[in-house]
């Protein structure tokens, strides 16, 4: 059994500190995957996070023998890792755009409706931090759906709640986040 499988089993046994170890592993795997893809694909090719996450799952854990519960944990971690990758990426780009040095995002410059995906990721990430304090479960739903590209069914499995609850969380959270962002702008 490899590291990831061991960690996932530990999480399944309730050793919660194990999830801290999972995240960096998944993060690195996703990064490597993306880099490898870059070498294979043409420069203009676009990538879907969900594809990346699924590929990571197959490579790191394999299919079949693993309990579905483990898969849920893995996907939750992968979504969080994706979030960091995307936000990191957006920050880097924004820094380059603003001529390097310290980054200063000027919120007045951003038109909410026509926001580029990268800026959008930064905005959502910020507002999400706030949502995490107010409504942690909803925030997790957003991470998985927005950054991880997971389906309602996958999120429901990962969080151990019903699909309808997931949908409700997602709809309400989206509305809440959007209002938060519109108020800022």
């Amino acid at each position, binding site marked *: 059994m490899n590291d990831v499988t061991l960690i996932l089993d530990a999480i399944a046994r309730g050793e919660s500190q194990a999830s801290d170890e999972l995240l960096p592993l998944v993060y690195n795997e996703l990064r490597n995957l993306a880099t490898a893809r*870059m070498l294979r694909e043409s420069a*203009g090719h676009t990538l879907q*996070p969900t594809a990346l996450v699924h590929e990571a799952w197959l490579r790191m854990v394999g299919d079949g023998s693993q309990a579905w519960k483990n898969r849920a944990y893995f996907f939750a971690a992968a979504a969080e890792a994706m979030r960091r990758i995307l936000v990191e990426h957006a920050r*880097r780009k924004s820094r380059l755009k603003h001529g390097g040095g310290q980054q200063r995002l000027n*919120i007045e410059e951003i038109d909410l*409706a026509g926001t580029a*995906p990268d800026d959008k990721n930064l905005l959502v990430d910020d507002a999400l931090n706030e949502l995490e304090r107010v409504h942690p479960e909803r925030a997790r739903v957003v991470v998985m759906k927005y950054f991880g*590209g997971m389906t309602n069914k996958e999120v429901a499995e990962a969080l151990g709640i019903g699909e309808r609850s997931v949908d409700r969380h997602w709809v309400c959270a989206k509305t809440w986040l959007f209002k938060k962002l519109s108020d800022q702008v």
Partner: protein
Amino acid sequence: MMEAVTEKAEEIFYSALEIKSPDERKAFLDRACLENAVLRAAVEDMLASQAKVDKFFSEGGSQSFSISELAGSLAEKPDPSGKEDATPLVDEELGKTIGPYKILQRLGEGGCGVVYMAEQEKPVRRRVALKIIKLGMDTKSVIARFEAERQALALMDHPNIARVLDAGMTQIGRPYFVMELVRGVKITEYCDQNELDTRQRLELFMNICRAIQHAHQKGVIHRDIKPSNILVTVIDGAAVPKVIDFGIAKAIEGRLTDNTIFTAYEQFIGTPAYMSPEQAVMSGVDVDTRSDIYSLGVLLYELLTGRTPFESKDLMQNGVEGLRRTLAEKEPQRPSVLVTTLHGSALTQLAHLRQAEPLKLITLLRGDLDWIVIRTLEKDRARRYETANGLAMDVQRFLDNEPVMARPPSRIYRLQKLIRRNKVTFTAGVMVALALIGGLGVATWFWYQEREARKRAVTAEHMALDAEKQQAQLRMEAEDRERITQAAFLISQNKLEEADDLVGKVSAIKPSLEADSVLRALGEWNALRGQWTQAAGRFKLLLDADQRDNSWAITEDLLKAGPIQIERGDMQGYEHFRRAALARYIDTTDPVFAERTLKICLLSSADADVMKSLEKLSEISADSMKQSGKDPTMEAWRCVSLGLMTYRQGYAPTSKYWCDRCLSYPENNPGRIATAHIIKSMSCYQLGEAAAARAELELGRDLVTAEFTKGLGAGNGGVGFWYDWLFARILLREAESMIEKPAPFEK
């Protein structure tokens, strides 16, 4: 936890989303929201935003990005820590570069972040303190708020303030602040380690007050004054306190609106023991410089007694509500009382650290220091010291054995101070004086000493004031408060002209009892000199700031301000004034307030709107007269108001009745009697009784002329106050122009 209304709104909103037909949806909303307009608006708002929400989140689940870009940026940064938010920073930060700063050494970790010593290469090579805020938060707004204050922060230049140099975002998105590097220990620790006595502690404390004053004058409020933000360094053998973290509390506190965020707040700001009552409320009441005064008071308390007025632990045990209640309602123990309650060894230890005998320490604290501390800790910020400078000066007065402002001065108290201050001189002086000229000499000499001391203090304040120019709104306010404090000083010395000059420069005030009494005194002073414009200005400032309703003093201020407007010849100003007064008291049920409002609104004939609004007040006044006999003075005045109201309504016979009734009261108040005659003369004239009108007019005029010939004085309740006489004279002019110079073609 969301607020109840939000949760309810979301529930309805989510159900409504599934109803596609607009009509059905509307019917559903009608049912679900009933009459609750707030709820309905919240739901409608959410529904209306859906199209935009969906567009904005359309990439959710299928977000795509250019692979080359992403991989390229990933390759650039091989090993991000991958951890954010509440995870503590680890020392792997050492040796790293953040912006232009290279991390050298970890200095410490506080409630809100980790502080490193760092080196800056450019533009100058220097060592700085770099504070990285621990909790992942809305970094962008933190930095935006910091930027907003950056200019003000840059203006601060004071040896006891550590400069904040820069702010930015680390690579993993945490906000950081760069400050002047201060190597020192917490002020409380420094004092105890070096066993400073109370005088030395107070001297350190005054330095801090002056630093805070400097910041306030530059428009910067600290918001988080506490021992760990005041470090003491020893330079050339002298202890130099430095206030750190200026501007940071504001940048990271953000909008604190509910309990949830409060938890976060607690993590950042740390000790609630130093939080002012208005900070704890977080109701959006603006926190101003006086919040810092409160925290300074807590600091003073701790320096003196080793404890805070309320312990953090006790404050927090009943949750946020308990904290707010305690801070808003519970009076802190006076320092001397607190120390008395300490048990033997604790007290001995405390006194030992202050190089004093336990009993001596208690005696030292009792009295002046108690009062100074209590005044800084007032729940109502208007009752605290107006400025940090004012607080420092009072501490200085204590050290110099001069009377402190914090105590309402009594003659005996001042004499005690005087004797203590000049023991030898005093004894000799008393002997000589008693022997030679008796008590009068002592009094003169005493007065002279007092005046000299005051003069010195005033000069000091003058210098502090003149040294700076106006930079920002806040600073202006601080200065205005300073002027008010100074004016209060001058007034108590009977230097009204100087005080008035000073207050003439004040553009706006925050309400406080001190400001009220200063403006009231100067308004009257100007009015008695016929300086109507100035008088009107003083009362306008006062009435604009003091929006307390149901205050006896305010209705009296209105009585004064009304006639001043007319004497000034500013009929437009009066019109504006009377509408404002009416709006303020339209709902009163107090017959005295009603009577006064009637009077000030009827100094000249009013339009239909005003008359209509006044009817209710007139009824309250009239009703109260049905059960008369309780307070003849007030009733007699009520008759005047009712006489005037009914005259203006065109009910001349009723008006005559009220005037006669007014004149039947035994109390001989010439101001009131003159007014009643004058109103009666106008009513008689309206009824066609020309002779009676002239007779009444004569009676009224004689009294008014006599009063103004003798020279208008402040007056009193028995003969009429100055404003009662102005009131009479204004009506007299109206009556004269009507009865004696009837224009044939009046419009």
